[in-house]
């Protein structure tokens, strides 16, 4: 500032003690020179704040008795880094299918940042401000600053209760057409009255944050249902889990391919045997064979010449050096025949068993076959192959990855169904689209 230029007296905020021109009840004026309407909390007279005699503009009867303000007028809090004071409150009501729905709007004022609203419906809160740029409506969408918002609902809203002061002329039962476009957690709303449209941008906020900011007693009421622009916590994780699924699935596929390519599939033993079920001591051991190279899986394949009979084999893969045994049992059954439906068959003459992580060394198999003693001799071969690719564990891993992704997507889907159920565009079911 240049010296010698007198500072114009800033005009201290006038904390006027006014009284209602209708009932004489004291009025507190909080927004300094900005109030256009003041509502007497005692007699519900709406007064012209710009008239020095506080001309009575209208009086209204609260249809549902007194409203309970969750944030009382005069409450101050630091919201988004700025101190605001609650100066006005209004209830607005719309009708859908003959049922009235009311929501509450708390008008916040800062002499520096001006006005914003906190709106509440069934415990769901939005922090709303008037927009600076002009949104563009194209069909069922609105674009605002590069973001696309989808049409949710158009309704006629009436002011049904007012309290405190407002920087515009309030009137009870004033009707405006409200259209909401959503991009959770944001909602872009247009209000049209007398051919003039005002746009506000709301962001879904948690009641608990408001309670903390304004130092309100108790807890914020728990939200009921799903609100139009309520962000789905799962929606983000739904996107993320599919990204993870894709990444891990790809990794799995790569490992599987590498495993396929590099699996040596080295046959280390193969022998043909005959088993007579009537023999008393069927147990025997194979010659010793060597498993070379790295620790790998070992496949034992049994091909049995069974038709309408079964053979059960108790196997033990035994390390000749250490004596460590891997016991397992396999059953090979194959039945077939012809009935009224034609030819049928069940089971298979081939069986594979895979033993994971067998270290290199000298091994032999102990084999103990069993079958129905009434049946004839069964011929079978035993083939031992080391380092074979195994599809099944990859399939299991794939399913383990898929299930949570599907579950989260299903829950997200249901959340969106519920969100849109209240809109002008309820979704019917999967695949009907919107």
């Amino acid at each position, binding site marked *: *500032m*240049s010296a*010698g*230029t*007198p*500072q*114009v007296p*800033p*005009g*201290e*905020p*006038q904390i006027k003690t006014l009284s209602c021109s209708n009932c004489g009840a004291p009025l507190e004026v909080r*927004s*300094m*020179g*900005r109030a*256009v309407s003041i509502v007497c909390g005692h007699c519900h007279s709406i007064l012209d704040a*710009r008239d020095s005699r506080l001309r009575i503009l209208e009086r209204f009867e609260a249809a549902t008795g007194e409203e309970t303000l969750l944030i009382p007028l005069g409450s101050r809090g630091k919201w988004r880094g700025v*101190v605001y004071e609650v100066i006005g409150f209004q209830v607005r009501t719309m009708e859908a299918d003959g049922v009235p729905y009311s929501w509450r709007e708390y008008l916040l004022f*800062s*002499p*520096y*940042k*001006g*006005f914003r609203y906190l709106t509440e419906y069934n415990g769901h809160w939005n922090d709303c401000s*008037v927009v*600076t*740029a*002009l*949104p*563009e409506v194209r069909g069922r969408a609105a*674009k*605002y*600053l590069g973001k696309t918002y989808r049409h949710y609902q158009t309704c006629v809203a009436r002011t049904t209760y007012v309290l405190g002061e407002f*920087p*515009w*002329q309030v009137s009870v039962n004033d009707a405006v057409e409200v259209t909401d476009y959503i991009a959770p957690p944001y909602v872009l709303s247009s209000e049209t009255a007398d*051919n*003039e*449209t005002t746009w506000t941008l709301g962001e879904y906020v948690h009641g608990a944050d408001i309670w903390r900011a304004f130092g309100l007693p108790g807890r914020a009421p728990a939200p009921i249902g799903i609100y139009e622009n309520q962000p789905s916590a799962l929606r983000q994780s739904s996107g993320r889990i599919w990204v993870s699924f894709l990444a891990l699935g790809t990794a799995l596929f790569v490992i599987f391919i590498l495993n396929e390519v590099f699996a040596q599939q080295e046959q280390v033993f193969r022998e043909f045997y005959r088993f007579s079920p009537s023999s008393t001591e069927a147990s025997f051991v194979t010659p010793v064979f060597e498993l070379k190279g790295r620790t790998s899986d070992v496949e034992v394949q049994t091909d049995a010449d069974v038709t309408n009979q079964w053979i059960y084999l108790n196997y033990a893969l035994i390390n000749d050096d250490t004596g460590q045994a891997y016991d397992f049992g396999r059953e090979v059954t194959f039945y077939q025949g012809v009935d009224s439906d034609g030819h049928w068959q069940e089971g298979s003459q081939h069986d594979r068993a895979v033993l994971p992580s067998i270290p290199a060394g000298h091994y032999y198999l102990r084999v103990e076959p069993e079958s129905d003693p009434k049946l004839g001799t069964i011929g079978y071969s035993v083939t031992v192959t080391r380092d074979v690719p195994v599809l099944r564990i990859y399939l299991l891993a794939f399913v383990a990855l898929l299930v949570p992704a599907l579950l989260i997507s299903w829950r997200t889907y249901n959340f969106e169904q519920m969100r849109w159920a209240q809109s002008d565009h309820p979704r019917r079911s999967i695949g009907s689209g919107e």
Partner: protein
Amino acid sequence: MTQAAALCPSCGGPIQFRWSSSVQTTCPYCKSILIRTDVKLERVGVVSDLPPDSSPIQLGTSGVYENRAFTVGGRIIYDYDEGSWNEWHIMLSQGGSAWLSDAQSQYAVTLAFNATPLPPVGAVQLGERFTWSKTEYTVTAITEARYRGVEGELPFEYWDKQSATFVDLRSPGADFATLDYSDENPVLYLGRAVDFDDLRLKNLRTFEGWS
């Protein structure tokens, strides 16, 4: 930028102009409205009491608009059906001046822009579109305003007005335009809707009890 002082022809108080192009100012001591002629200051009227006002801006407030520093030198106050607003006359650091409007804390900075032909008053409809300076604007408000008062330095004489029509236009990119019909020939102002924080205002009014 302070110019040599003159004396108020009414009360004799020293009058200084911050801006060489100022045509009108108000005496901070006796509220006389003074018009600068070639040789002297002429008293043309007196400002009635300004309405109670909660704008955080005051004469001498400085800020930044599109990387240009500015200082607030004067203002015009208007009343309309839904309240009142201030048009703060701001002097830009590299010369020239602009207007910072504060309508219920909705801020916009605009500069006079030469465009012809401009639509005559009464011919403009809400929702109508105009393109100036390669930007398409949509009419968002048509306001009948009553002149309420002046303060400080202005680039033109503005003291005997009664009412005027203003047409506000906006773009999807937060551009802001005003058609000012307070004179015979309309004047177009182009600029941007701005956030309070982006203006980086200093030397603001202080409000008791508000930090």
